């Protein structure tokens, strides 16, 4: 009896051992078969899921901290197909509140999850707060509803919504040519286009992070913090920007110009205070881009469209000649009305002969013949060396997306001819963007130092504000040259009794009227009118550049662009708290007297 029990025990033990061993061997085998890695990966799907968290896009502020680009709340409304109880109710509510197609929502809600079908379907990616409030109200009403025994209580079970950020531009189209836009409709691949949004896209966007979210509630998740993208504080002053945009709109309406650009720049540090161009887009509706900017309309003419600036360029020619010692302000040129250069006759704008003129007179009467002679006195090598020193052969490097420059023709190039030295001297045959002109002429207003134009003043990264230091691009002129030329241009404007003058303030400036090159040659009936000026002349705080394209009221810069400069400066001195000359000089003398 005892032996029998013992043998039974042995048999059971052996069977149990064999089964245990078989299970063990199978476990080891499964872990080492080729599909083991795949099975392991599949098992991860049941353990949790990987979630990508996109940081909130950084804000963009103006110089005073007014929000120009931020984020507003929208809601993604979707269907959790596993939980959907009444597809018809959901379809009816979604179509009435969200304005969605009933049939499409119903088809989605009736879908069975799994087997190739998704578990979650997005119905509306950008539902508004008001729509969500309406949905919540209906949901609550359904929950509170009392129904009879044979009635079914309506429910929105399975219809869910989650709050998300959406890029918003509270100021609408104000400064939109500087800000650019962010393609927020594309939630995963959205990026910045043009302006600051493009130039600083990576900084604004931040770095998305992936986290493993465990289904096991026992495993306490680590705190998933994704720092927001960097915020930017611009040099742009919202009030000045709005004022320049208003003045530009009025100028275009009044002059019949096709388009326009106004740049307000601080020559002391290179900061751009305002940059108004047409047309402008409301970045909240960036999908209208193609409609507002038909090819080849640039998004920002100030940096993306080059043109032959005409006589405003004479400022640079005169600056180079004075700096090199080729002429002095007292040098007298006898104007006979024409000059022959490289086999081509150069004439003045009115084909007249102006007799003896000093250099101030040449600038005042904007004499092409005189400036051609000056360029010849300077010589091609020195002239083009100065142009390169002014940065006219390259981009300015302004921190905005979409900057272009037109190649500068220099002696030795196939396309350069001797006459180009003369025509270039008065701004013809040379194509430049307004921002190139502003940077170069800024050196005249800033004692010869040329500052890099920039629109970002500081950045806020990880809760700290980092200032952007001004950069000196170069010193193309001596300080004395800059001061001398500024005085000459003050005198020139005053003697001309220009409409650009502003009562109470001394400003230096120069008009420009440029014929437009076409495939049939230059047109004289359609022009680009410009004006560049800066002030107060003794200690410039602003430089304003005006460009009005193809005005119909007049072809002359002195009649079209000059009064616009005056309008801008009249408002600018108030917005910038710049005292009139008499008060400023009185304060200065009082200070010196002390």
């Amino acid at each position, binding site marked *: 009896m005892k032996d029998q029990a013992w043998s039974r025990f042995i048999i059971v033990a052996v069977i149990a051992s064999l089964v245990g061993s078989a299970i063990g061997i199978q476990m080891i085998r499964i872990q080492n078969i080729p599909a083991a890695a795949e099975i392991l990966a599949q098992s991860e799907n049941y353990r949790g899921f990987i979630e990508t968290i996109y940081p*909130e896009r950084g*804000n963009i*502020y*103006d*110089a*005073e*901290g*007014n*929000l120009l680009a*931020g*984020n*507003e*709340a929208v809601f993604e409304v979707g269907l959790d197909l596993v939980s959907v109880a009444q597809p018809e109710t959901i379809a009816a509510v979604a179509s009435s509140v969200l304005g969605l197609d009933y049939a499409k929502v119903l088809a989605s809600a009736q879908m069975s999850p799994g087997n190739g079908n998704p578990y979650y379907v997005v119905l509306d990616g950008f539902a508004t*707060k008001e729509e969500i409030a309406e949905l919540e109200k209906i949901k609550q009403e359904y929950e509170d509803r009392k129904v009879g025994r044979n009635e079914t209580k309506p429910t929105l079970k399975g219809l869910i919504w989650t*709050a*998300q*950020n959406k890029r*918003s531009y*509270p*100021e*609408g189209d*104000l400064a939109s040519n500087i800000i650019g836009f962010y393609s927020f409709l594309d939630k995963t691949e959205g990026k910045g286009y043009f302006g600051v949004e493009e130039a600083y896209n990576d900084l604004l966007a931040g770095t998305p992070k992936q986290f493993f979210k465990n289904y096991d*509630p*026992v*495993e*306490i*998740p680590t*705190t*998933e913090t994704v720092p927001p993208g960097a*915020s930017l*504080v611009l040099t742009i*002053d*919202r*009030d000045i920007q*709005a004022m320049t945009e208003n003045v530009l709109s009025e100028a275009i309406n009044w002059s019949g110009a096709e388009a326009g650009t106004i740049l307000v720049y601080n020559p002391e540090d290179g900061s751009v205070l305002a940059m108004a161009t047409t047309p402008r887009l409301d970045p909240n509706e960036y999908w209208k881009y193609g409609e507002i900017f038909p090819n080849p309309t640039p998004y920002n003419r100030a940096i993306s469209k080059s043109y032959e600036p005409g006589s405003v360029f004479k400022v640079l020619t005169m600056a180079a000649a004075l700096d090199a010692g080729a002429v002095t302000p007292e040098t007298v040129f006898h104007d006979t009305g024409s000059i022959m250069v490289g086999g081509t006759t150069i004439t003045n704008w009115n084909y007249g002969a102006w007799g003896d003129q000093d250099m101030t007179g040449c600038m005042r009467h904007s004499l092409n013949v005189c400036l051609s002679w000056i360029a010849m006195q300077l010589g091609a090598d020195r002239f083009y060396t100065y142009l390169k020193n002014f940065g006219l052969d390259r981009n300015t490097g302004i921190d905005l997306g979409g900057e272009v420059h037109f190649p500068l023709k220099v002696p030795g190039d196939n396309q350069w001819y001797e006459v180009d030295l003369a025509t270039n001297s008065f701004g013809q045959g040379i194509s430049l963007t307004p921002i190139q002109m502003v940077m170069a002429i800024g050196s005249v207003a800033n004692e010869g130092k040329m500052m890099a134009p920039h629109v970002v*003043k*500081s950045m*806020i990264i990880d*809760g*700290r*504000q*980092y*200032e952007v230091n001004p950069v000196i691009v170069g010193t193309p002129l001596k300080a004395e040259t800059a001061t001398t030329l500024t005085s000459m241009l003050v005198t020139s404007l005053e003697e001309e009794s220009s409409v650009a003058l502003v*009562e109470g303030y001394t400003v230096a400036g120069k008009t420009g009227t440029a014929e437009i090159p076409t495939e049939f040659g230059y047109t004289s009936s359609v022009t680009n009118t410009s004006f560049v000026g800066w002030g107060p002349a003794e200690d410039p705080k602003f430089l304003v550049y005006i460009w009005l394209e193809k005005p119909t009221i007049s072809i002359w810069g002195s009649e079209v662009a000059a009064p616009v400069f005056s309008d801008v400066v*009249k*408002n600018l*001195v*108030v917005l910038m*708290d710049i*005292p*009139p000359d008499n*008060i400023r000089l009185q*304060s200065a003398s009082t200070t010196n007297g002390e």
Partner: protein
Amino acid sequence: MKTNFLHAYQQAPWRTQLQWIGIFLLILVIIAAIAGVYLSVSERAATTGRQIQSLEEEINLLVIENNDLASQLASIKSIKNMQARVEDLDMVQLDPQQALYLEIPGYIPKEAAVLAPPARSQSREAPVLLPEFTASLWDWFLSKLSQPQISNEVQP
């Protein structure tokens, strides 16, 4: 003699059975207690985990709401809205040429926006919890030991 001795000290069969049952029940109670503690800790961990998730979601929602409110405020204060309000109040824009420049003592001109502490700031953030609330008894004991003894005696 030997048999009688062993027999005299041998446990009664029912007593042995009772001992085994007692040991079994004791083990069962211990296992049940361990399981109970484990379940309790797990439940608390799970609840805390869910609370953390819930708080994180709340933080995210508050951040989104905060951004939204900032955008709404900016929209209300936008140039276009402010101009519309000014027009509603029958106010007209002053011709800048009519503006009179006055020097007012104490007037603070426009200042650059400071929206965050400067990068070079050396200020330290104060801890949310004071060390008194985070230090263990052992830490407190060590800190007391390491503190220099201060004598109350007056030195001549």
